[in-house]
């Protein structure tokens, strides 16, 4: 996935409103968003794994890997998608009692949202 072609770094440097426009670019619908699950001391590891398997249809291995990441690192990105998609997942996760938030992908992880910027992020 790439960033909108309308505004490259070059355009940015030549305008006063570069930062503002960049923010607009980042909220464009085709920029991937992340669904993040946070650790808490209450939710059972088995339950979290069950939710990942039954809701997302993940394999046992993938569900357990993500669950352990939540447990050990405090958070894990468990799904990507458009803002609307990850928000829908977030509501479903809240329904299950998991602590979920959405965030814009910053492109650090798997490169899918990295675009061609020079590290400028608004």
């Amino acid at each position, binding site marked *: 996935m790439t960033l909108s072609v309308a505004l490259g770094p070059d355009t940015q440097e030549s305008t006063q409103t570069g930062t503002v426009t960049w923010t607009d670019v980042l909220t464009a619908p085709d920029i991937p968003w992340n669904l993040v699950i946070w650790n808490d001391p209450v939710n059972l590891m088995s339950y979290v*794994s069950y939710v990942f398997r039954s809701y997302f249809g993940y394999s046992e291995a993938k569900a357990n890997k993500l669950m352990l990441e939540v447990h050990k690192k405090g958070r894990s990105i468990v799904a990507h998608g458009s803002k609307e998609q990850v928000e829908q997942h977030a509501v479903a996760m809240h329904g299950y009692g998991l602590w979920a938030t959405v965030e814009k992908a910053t492109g650090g992880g798997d490169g899918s949202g990295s675009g061609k910027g020079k590290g400028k992020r608004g």
Partner: protein
Amino acid sequence: MAKAFKSGIKGINGYLEPAERELLRSLFDDVVSMLEPEERANQDPLAALVGLDTEAREPSDRALRRLLPNVSKNDDAASLEFRRYTERSLRESKIGALKAASLGLDKDELVLSPADARHWSMALNDVRLVLAERLDIRDDEDAGHVHLMQDWSQAEDVESYLALVYNFTTWLQESLVQAMLQSLDTRG
């Protein structure tokens, strides 16, 4: 004494004593009443019908905030807007699961369909989230401390009673989820 849930041919089977069923019923009811949206006199009925709540705001009660969390970690305005569109239906779906679980408490023997089991696991989870806030469980160490409380003859104050109830619901949910995972495995 309750028996652990087991995955069987007709669904997931469980057994609860009458006193345990009464306890669960009152826990489910308590969480339902926490979640029931307040009726406001000036509420737009059409907006309510489509699940929109223009006056929704982040709950001040910690337990309720955990049941209905913000969707963004650091954008309060985005969280609030999202809450206005989604919180009412989230409350309703949680209430639906809690009431469905409560309805199944009429008999000692429980036979849960996959949908029943899902409602039960969600209901037990919400009950545990609320109890955990009341018990101030903030991290794994706190959880471990509460977990040590297993003997009902030790119940001498509200906190120890809550800890015992928390541990009972934890055990029950764990046994249910194990049975659900097992039926997930056999279904492929």
